């Protein structure tokens, strides 16, 4: 079967899988960004309880596998009375996992904002919250955007695992088509190319634009 015939028959299913993958990506990215900010700031907090919670979260999610976390959230959490639909369990797991890596980026970026900026904000008698929001965070975001680009690609790759709890994403569709046709090279090959296109021609350029926009806002370009 030629690749065109293949696409005519299975293209629609691959497209719907791609749409699910994109939805998982966006939702997981939102969770990852929020959680990373909370845990990254939390790790720098003066309050030992907040600091401790952040450190425990970061170490647990960075120290174990995404797949283990996904299975735990999907199969074990219901035993505690929290039952998530598979679609939600998917993006929540991926988001929490990537968020723990992001938290370290947030912390590192905040700590690398030059000391003079902290002192200047203090000298202007800004409140700690205002200093963080107006002075430190915008500069920290400028510093951490490039590594976040890589992290978002890791996140996209992470969403492929949700197929293992049968969320019908791109990976899942490729697996299903392969199981009924045995056309492995086409099924998995096309899926690989679609993931590559998403990463290389959508996420990377988007992050580059964000970096440029941020540099302009910070008056560096």
């Amino acid at each position, binding site marked *: 079967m030629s690749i065109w015939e293949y696409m005519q028959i299975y293209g629609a299913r691959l497209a719907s899988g791609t749409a699910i993958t994109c939805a998982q990506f966006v939702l997981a990215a939102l969770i990852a960004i929020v959680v990373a900010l909370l845990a990254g700031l939390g790790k720098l907090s003066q309050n030992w309880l907040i600091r401790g919670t952040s450190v425990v979260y970061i170490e647990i999610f960075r120290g174990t596998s995404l797949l283990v976390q996904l299975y735990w959230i999907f199969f*074990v959490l219901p035993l505690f009375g929290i039952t998530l639909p598979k679609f939600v369990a998917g993006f929540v797991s991926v988001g929490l996992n990537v968020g723990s890596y992001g938290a370290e980026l947030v912390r590192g970026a905040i700590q690398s904002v030059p000391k003079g900026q902290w002192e200047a904000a203090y000298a202007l008698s800004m409140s700690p919250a205002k200093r963080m929001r107006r002075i430190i965070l915008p500069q920290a975001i400028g510093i951490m955007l490039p590594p976040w680009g890589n992290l978002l690609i890791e996140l996209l790759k992470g969403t*492929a695992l949700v197929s293992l709890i049968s969320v019908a994403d791109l990976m899942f569709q490729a697996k299903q088509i*392969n199981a009924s046709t045995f056309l492995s090279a086409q099924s998995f090959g096309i899926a690989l190319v679609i993931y*590559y296109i998403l990463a290389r021609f959508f996420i990377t350029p988007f992050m580059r634009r964000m970096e440029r926009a941020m540099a302009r806002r910070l008056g560096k370009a």
Partner: protein
Amino acid sequence: MSFNWRWDFTWDILPRLLAATLNTLIAAGAGYAIALVLGLILALAQRTGWRGLTVAVREFVEFIRSTPLVLQIFFVFYVGPQFGIRLSPWTSGMIAIGLHYSAYLSEVYRAGIEAVPKGQWEACRAINMSTRDTYLRIIIPQALPPSIAGMGNYLVGIFKDTPMLSVIGVAELMHTANAIGSESYRFLEPYTLVGVIFLAISLPTAGLIRLFEGWVRRKLGL
């Protein structure tokens, strides 16, 4: 709420899980060994000076890095038989995971080599050193210490990615936990223990890598 942790069941399954942990460690070690060597080849291939080769290897590394490992594992495992090459789950798993991480390690090597000051290259040329000696005696010893942190991260990373091998039936930790879960209909203990075992290995390893990095720096007098 049906949450009840059963200790007797925990002690029953622990030996099985620990035996599977050994498989996980072997898989991570073998995959890492492949990745270390292949990564070096990919890094050096980008420095040969042939433009075509550099671009091709660069694109290949980008492709591997931006597509999911689990999909690559399926690809290697299922595409072989279509063309008459049958690979065992272990072999295809090691190929896929080794290849995946070799792309990451090649970037670590590349950054390490590029961080060596230009003057070092020029000095080698000035005293008429061969390319081989330049790399082995001057460049690599200096490129190594800054690379160790990155190499260590990927050692922990490969260890944490071995559960994906369970999808093609490699009998590692996750696969065993799944088997226990479907035999006994109890998921709480096996999955939680898998998480604990992963933490118990990856956290100390990360610490050891930091110590090792300091040791290498001292040894090389940096």
